[in-house]
């Protein structure tokens, strides 16, 4: 009898928690309909913000992959003095309040900042440009990709890389033909998380890049700007972001399921298995 009551309590708490998490999403879609969302997409403010968000996110994620992947591989496979310091550094943006990150970027890369004079000597002005948005997004989102990438590379069996080397493949070929395909699922999951985090970036962006429509105003910044002017537009943009987030969450799940079953079985989802 007592056990049933205890169990019921757990279920009630869990249901309450889940309902709480779902509530804002329901709120958005109760206020706005898919038709309204599509209608608002032609609103120039929404269109501009969408383009800025998409462009800066794609460039930022490309940079994160390009710089984050080799860094993660090094951190996962080599030990060297200062290794744990390097790991801490990778995780730093995760715990840093985004507004602080924005101020920091301004203090480092602004015209009065640490590297400001060298940058302006090269004719580069970063703050309040679209490049600044990309930099802010890359800074804040990178740990989510790099941490997951480190975990995925660490999970790769060192015997497999050793086997590849003894079979005549150099380190680079080994990386692309063995390590990368095996870590693929985890890397995709990390990228999905990083993308979601970058898309929602607000604090660092507004501090470092401002909120100029069509230049630096991303979807979250536009939501804030439109909040007092047109609540429907705000909700429509909210709806767009919810849909994108749902898509990213799905990507994350698929990525993680790849990682878990080490693709030893039949072709993977969507038939995207490696056909080298």
């Amino acid at each position, binding site marked *: 009898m007592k056990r049933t009551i205890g169990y019921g309590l757990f279920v009630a708490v869990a249901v309450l928690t889940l309902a709480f998490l779902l509530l804002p999403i329901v709120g958005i879609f109760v206020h706005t309909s898919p038709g309204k969302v599509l209608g608002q997409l032609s609103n120039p403010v929404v269109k501009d913000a969408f383009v800025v968000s998409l462009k800066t996110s794609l460039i930022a994620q490309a940079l994160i992959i390009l710089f984050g992947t080799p860094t993660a591989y090094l951190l996962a496979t080599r030990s060297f003095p200062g290794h744990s310091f390097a790991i801490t550094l990778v995780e730093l943006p995760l715990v840093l309040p985004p507004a602080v990150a924005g101020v920091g970027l301004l203090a480092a890369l602004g015209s009065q900042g640490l590297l400001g004079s060298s940058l302006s000597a090269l004719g580069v002005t970063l703050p309040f440009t679209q490049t600044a948005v990309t930099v802010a997004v890359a800074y804040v989102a990178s740990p989510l990709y790099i941490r997951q990438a480190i975990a995925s590379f660490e999970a790769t069996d060192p015997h497999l890389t050793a086997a590849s080397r003894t079979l005549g493949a*150099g380190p680079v070929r080994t990386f692309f033909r063995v390590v990368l395909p095996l870590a693929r699922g985890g890397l995709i999951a990390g990228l999905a998380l990083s993308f979601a985090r970058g898309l929602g970036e607000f604090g660092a962006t507004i501090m470092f890049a401002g909120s100029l429509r069509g230049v630096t105003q991303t979807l979250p910044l536009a939501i804030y700007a439109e909040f007092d002017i047109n609540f429907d537009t705000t909700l429509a943009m909210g709806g767009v972001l919810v849909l994108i987030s749902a898509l990213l969450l799905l990507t994350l799940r698929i990525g993680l399921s790849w990682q878990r079953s080490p693709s030893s079985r039949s072709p993977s989802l969507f038939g995207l298995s490696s056909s080298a």
Partner: protein
Amino acid sequence: MATLTLEQVTVPLRTFELRLSLGVDSTVALVGPSGAGKSTVLNAIAGLVKPSDGAIRCNDETWFDAGRGVFAPPEKRRVGLVFQDYALFPHLTVRQNVEYARRHAADDYLDRFQIRHLEDERPGSLSGGERQRVALARALARDPEILLLDEPLAALDAHTKADVRAELQELLGGLEIPTLLVTHDFEDAAALAGRVGVVVEGRLRQEGTPAELVAQPADPFVASFTGANLLHGRTDGPDGSTTSVHLDDGTVVTTTDGGYGAITLAVYPWDVTVSTHRPDDSATNVVEGTITAITELGNRARVTIGPVSAEITVDSLHRLGLEPGRRAFASFKATGTRIVASRPTTNGGEE
């Protein structure tokens, strides 16, 4: 045949230092307890571990020479390394695994190792024996100058082990490249290799043929480790409840195990009794011959009569007045014998 030589190859390990010299020009097995540094030897040869001192040469190539600062990376050494867990690439098919080393060469190896029908399978769906065949095919597709096998039978359950061992035995016999294998099981080593080296805590304690190691172990550790006498012979199969085996030297012994063809019989030295007169007791097997060797190990002594070594107490040795050259009888029970390798051969004889 190619030759691999290790000269004072030194690798510092956690609690001791590996240091050994070795020449490999046929099939050689390194045996020893786990953690003795055996796998490190293979990794050093393959270039996966860089020794702190010594030299490794294969034919006229120098793969490693600490004195001259030479260290060839793994991909520059023509080595076929078969890992204990086989290390097959899980994301590639059997064919892609074999082709990894050399493109367009897989067909030969798929046929030779009878894995053609598995070519589109992924390693995850293969049995232990099949995985080993794929791993061997992949290693040999590299066209190596030396084959290295790390605990080739350890990943298999007892049930399939005997089959795979017989298969491996046949395969190694047909290879034309030198092979170095490591195992913790002396019987496996003796079944697969012509020469065996015992490695303990990074040092090569003794090297010789399996029979030499059983007959004249250098120290008590080698004695306890080498364990059984291995008697090679042929049989036409069980006759009633027992099987008669014609040993290579003409002696006929009886075993309670079943087998057919060319077989190897294991008898533990401590199960063998030595007497100066033909014994009249329940032991079915009696080998008569002259004592060829006596090795004392503390309070125990190994006495070799023909193909059989017996382990008796030093007291008994003196009581019976045994000495080399004297005629003696070694007897052991049919129930004390085990068939450890069986290879059905037809009239073609040994391959």
